């Protein structure tokens, strides 16, 4: 039996999830009142990356497909918002999210049609290559995309309400915008939890475990992978759309393959065989990167060392290791 196995699904009831999720939601709601603005904004970044991690993990953890191209969908979200601001003069965050979903569906339908025909390294390389196509488009078509200068995105309207011209932007981002991100984060977690615990989610796990057998219980493998690809891309794009007002600017860096690597890093850090792993991984990664950048100019080296140690010492990630330790402790106390 694999040591990184998912817990039997039967152990997870809606009541169980509420018991765990409610206190966490309360803590996340209260945190801006006790943290300074910088830390709150940092947490907002973490929650946004967690949405991207959830989307990514639907493919890796639940379908068994490792994508090295999720920066593409994150970038699609970010650039859709920037284009809507620049060319359509839209300011509404809700319209940004709707536009992002439409754009992400368009891109993922095309990319997914090509990619889900393949698995393993071929799938990974294809996703990487396609994301680089988008990156090069953003890089080269500078008269549309702003090139390396990127496109600026001003403070959006939330729920149709314009923020006061005199309101401090930092205050807006660490309060109004943080809560907006938190609500979308909770909605995304709920929807993804429903998906992975649905019959469709079980079918994805079956495909991950044994493609041949899944075929012989009547599951059309490619169609299911395709739908998982779409959902995964849309979640990651929503994260991109939420990220860009926080960042104030989008550049081709949002599309580059190293950012795809960061999304993989977040999921491995938290544990990709757990539902909560990518969420924890994204938040911790965000703080870890912040610490590393402040600590040394060779922060990439430091992060690389962390990744190597992580894979060697904690192959199940933070959440997976915590679960193993909890299970060991329970067994000891039961004796």
């Amino acid at each position: 039996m694999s040591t990184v196995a998912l817990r039997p699904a039967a152990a997870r009831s809606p009541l169980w999830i509420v018991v765990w999720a409610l206190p966490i939601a309360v803590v996340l709601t209260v945190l801006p009142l006790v943290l300074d603005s910088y830390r709150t904004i940092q947490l907002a970044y973490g929650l946004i990356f967690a949405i991207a991690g959830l989307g990514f993990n639907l493919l890796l953890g639940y379908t068994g497909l490792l994508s090295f191209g999720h920066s593409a969908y994150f970038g699609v979200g970010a650039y859709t918002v920037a284009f809507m601001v620049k060319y359509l003069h839209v300011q509404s965050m809700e319209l940004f999210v709707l536009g992002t979903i439409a754009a992400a569906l368009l891109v993922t339908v095309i990319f997914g049609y090509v990619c889900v025909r393949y698995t393993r390294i071929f799938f990974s390389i294809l996703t990487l290559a396609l994301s680089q196509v988008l990156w090069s488009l953003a890089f080269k078509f500078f008269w549309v995309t702003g090139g390396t200068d990127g496109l600026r995105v001003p403070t959006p309207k939330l729920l149709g309400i314009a923020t006061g011209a005199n309101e401090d932007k930092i205050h807006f981002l660490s309060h109004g915008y943080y809560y907006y991100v938190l609500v979308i984060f909770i909605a995304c977690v709920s929807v993804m939890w429903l998906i992975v615990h649905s019959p469709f989610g079980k079918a994805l796990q079956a495909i991950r475990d044994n493609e041949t057998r899944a075929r012989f219980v009547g599951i059309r493998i490619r169609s299911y992978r395709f739908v998982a690809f779409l959902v995964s891309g849309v979640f990651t794009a929503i994260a991109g759309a939420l990220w860009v007002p926080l960042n104030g600017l989008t550049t081709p860096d949002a599309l580059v393959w190293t950012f795809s690597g960061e999304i993989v890093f977040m999921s491995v850090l938290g544990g990709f065989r757990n539902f909560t792993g990518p969420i924890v991984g994204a938040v911790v990664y965000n703080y870890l990167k912040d610490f590393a950048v402040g600590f040394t100019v060779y922060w990439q080296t430091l992060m690389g060392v962390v990744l190597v140690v992580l894979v060697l010492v904690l192959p199940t990630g933070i959440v997976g290791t915590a679960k193993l330790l909890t299970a060991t402790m329970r067994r000891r106390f039961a004796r």
Partner: protein
Amino acid sequence: MSYLQTEKLTKYFGDTHAVDKVDFAIGEGEVVSLIGSNGAGKTSLVNLISGLLQPDSGRIVFRGEDISNQSVQDRIRGGIARSFQIVNLFDELTVVDNVALSIFAREGKTRWLFTLADHYGAIWEEAHDILRQFGLDPKAKQLAGGISQGERKLLDVAVAYALKPQLLFLDEPTSGVSTREKAPIMDVISSIVRSHRITAVVIEHDMDIIFKYSDRIVVMHQGVILASGSPEEIRSNESVKDAVFGPTHA
């Protein structure tokens, strides 16, 4: 007309004639064993009928319909299911999840993204009922990757059975289990197959099991059908003795 019939079914792998113009037929409710030495073409024949392989030529007719070009999913919907020589399970799902997934797929529920699987009470009830029939209900909550080989073999058949097949292929259902476990496993499978009048084709190497549980035995040798008959007829067939058991077989 036969329940299932193949007409000049052929599959070559390079120069190897895995299945060579085979005319194989089975009647409704029959339990037929396919025997033959390794490489005789038994598994290839089952792979062709179940859709895992595409034939080079020939036809497969099931209940009067030509299914030669149907997808695996369409054949399953038509009532054909199979188990595998090397156990094929969803190892990181629980035992009950493995069976429930078959039922979800059979009922077309796996397309639903926004309904909790746990809300389909009738499906879970049916899954537990199937596990009870196979004696696996006490293991329902365990991961399929963590149960014994004998239990995995039974679960493999249970997953196929949950599709409510009319024609069931069992590819070596007792391979890799101890001699002591073989008869109990076959007793369970045989009783379920016969009580639900499922037409079954069993590939097996253990002759005691074959003679005990089969209505009819079909012998394959080098891609062709060498003989077909009742267990007694096959037991006394000299050419079968030479080809399958070897000339020194007593």
